[in-house]
């Protein structure tokens, strides 16, 4: 009895220490975001000093200097179609590999999974050259360069290509847990393949889709690599580039960057809060079979 109590104290103490370790830098960042640069730079204790001035100036400047609204529009124009398309296409693949037995089921699934393991950096040079040679019609905002390179379409496509592997893997595992009898019953009632997919399986897959949507949103939203290589117009870069815009050539205001980071992270946090319940139930996706 005594030992379990002592163990409990130990465990609580351990958790307390580690949660403080985690929270400490985040609190520091939030605090410094509200403080003017001069205050932290001139104080011998720097960021560890007690705040005297609390101001929203850093947030205002970050929005303005990082041209965040402009870059957010670009980001959402990429993230939303890319995320929707990824989930749509990979749920179709997942549906067919989990519902129908086909010779190449395993091979197909392996191909998709293996694609996940490929580091994107390894294909960037050929991809850039390919993109540079594919002409597409010039549409303002969407594809001003007249090529796949430099267009938002190109960016969306590469996200779909790279993200669908993981999504297919997760969704097919989830769909395998749904009873086959549902489909059989639907078939008996005369439902075609599309109807089985769209009206029977997809609604049941919602927790997995929500979990994936949260993850995909965060991943595509945070992308910097693809955007920077495939887009040449400074104005067409996504929100992640705004943060780099905040550091000067020689001079960097850390407090401003802290404020900028808080602004940039906001949508991801909001999406997580909105989809939190599904996210947690979706975390167990494919865990039991």
């Amino acid at each position, binding site marked *: 009895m005594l030992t379990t109590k002592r163990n409990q104290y130990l465990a609580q103490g351990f958790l307390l220490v580690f949660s403080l370790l985690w929270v400490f830098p985040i609190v520091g960042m939030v605090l410094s975001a509200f403080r003017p640069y001069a205050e932290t730079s001139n104080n011998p204790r720097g960021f560890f000093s007690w705040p005297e001035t609390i101001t929203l100036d850093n947030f205002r400047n970050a929005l303005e200097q990082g041209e965040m609204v402009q870059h957010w529009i670009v980001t959402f124009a990429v993230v939303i179609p890319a995320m929707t398309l990824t989930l749509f296409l990979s749920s179709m693949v997942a549906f067919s590999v989990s519902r129908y037995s086909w010779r190449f089921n395993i091979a197909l699934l392996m191909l998709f999974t293996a694609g996940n393991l490929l580091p994107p950096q390894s294909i960037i040079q050929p991809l850039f050259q390919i993109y540079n040679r594919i002409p597409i019609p010039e549409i303002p905002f969407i594809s001003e360069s007249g090529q796949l390179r430099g267009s938002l379409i190109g960016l969306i496509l590469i996200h779909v290509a790279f993200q669908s592997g993981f999504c297919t893997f997760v969704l097919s595992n989830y769909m395998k847990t749904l009873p086959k009898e549902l489909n059989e019953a639907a078939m008996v009632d005369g439902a075609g393949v599309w109807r089985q997919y769209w009206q029977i399986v997809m609604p049941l897959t919602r927790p997995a889709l929500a979990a994936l949507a949260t993850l995909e949103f965060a991943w595509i939203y945070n992308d910097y690599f693809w955007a920077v290589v495939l887009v040449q117009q*400074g*104005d067409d*870069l996504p929100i992640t580039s705004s943060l780099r815009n905040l*550091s000067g050539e020689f*001079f960097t205001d850390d407090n401003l960057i802290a404020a900028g980071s808080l602004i940039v992270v906001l949508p991801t946090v909001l999406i997580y809060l909105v989809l939190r319940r599904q996210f947690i139930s979706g975390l167990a996706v494919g865990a039991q079979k």
Partner: protein
Amino acid sequence: MTNASYPSPKEWDRLVRGKNVSRRSMLKGSAAAGAVVAGSSFLAACGSDDTEAGTEGGGSIEPGNASGALTIGSNLSDDTPKAALAAVVAAFPNSDVELSINTTDHNTFQENINTILQAGEDDVLTWFAGFRNKFFADQGLLGDISDVWSSISGLGEGFKAASTASDGKQYFVPAFYYTWAINNSKKLWSEKGYTEPKTWDELLGLADDMAAGGITPFAMANDGKWPQMGMFDILNMRTNGYDFHVDLMGGTESWTDDRVRQVFTNWEQLLPYSQEGGNGRTWQEAATDMENGTVGMYLLGTFAASNSDAMAEDMDFFNFPEIDSAIGSSALDAPIDGYQMVASPANAEAAKEFLLYISTAEAQDAYLGVDPSVVASNSGADTSVYNDLQRKSADLANAATGIAQFLDRDTIPDFASACGDVIAEFIEDPSKIDGLLADLDEKKTAIFADFGSS
């Protein structure tokens, strides 16, 4: 790997004399201006597409003929330089050309210059003179602008040399530069009665005085592993001279040479006088220490003044003193920024006209009117608006017999970062230097061999 593109001491000397060349109004008659450097052997074969008939050498640019859209890819993403470029563009005299600026933040721009050049979406790009320009010119990624140079006046031979690639053609137009020197706080120095040291012994003597007075003599910042490259550059130029420095950067001298070792021996003498833990300190933190009077001297670019308004008021600087009287103290780092053209621009005619315009005093006055932290490259630029720091920078560069571009601009990028690693390890533990230099020399051989074969 020739060093043809670097301004030699003699060429910089001519740059100084270039000041006597009277300023011409580039935008009116340029036929006469075309003759200024047309006799140069560099221009023998130019082969540009819009060669004007009847001019010597490779032809020249006739301003006012171009029309259509022109995009300038810019890394001037900080507020002030960005506004300054906008002012330059607004003052472009040819209204038939529709200019637009594509600004990318400078880090991203720098890391992606290769893809930016290959995409060729912009016609003209901001960039750096010297090796960094030559590097891409030699790969065929830049457009030859020798014909623009034949119309340029007011830029000395040193600037021309810093714009010339291995094939003897020009690929760059210098716009402005800034200098590296030892910065100090006017307030602290007048309070304590410190005076500018002219020799190495005086420098060490001054450091002793400062240390005795409880002031750390030298600020030391090296976050990002670039600030201390400046210290290596200047010590090498003072210890071994400008030519040796250029050869060392160009890969033709050995890093295990005793002369290189001597640079680090000298440097080791400064380390006890320097702030500790330099590798973790940003340049701003060290600048703030100088502003607060806890350090006495700070070798850095004049951009140190941008740390705060108080700093801009209080900062002064002086040339790094001589170490060897046979070598003197007239070489320094003064990185030049400017513009280059992509290999096949959508609008070559307008691009060249813009590049010619960028070289003029008019364009540079427009730039400096907004951003007073740099010095104009054109000798005809209006120096009456210069502040003290600018005037001093210009004097320093004009008196220099050798101008280096800074270590990370003067050599192959991969090799520059290898040098940065060695310098960072050296300031941490100077006793390791022999092993570090031996490794670095091996790396040099490998990196330069790759570069030569590509």
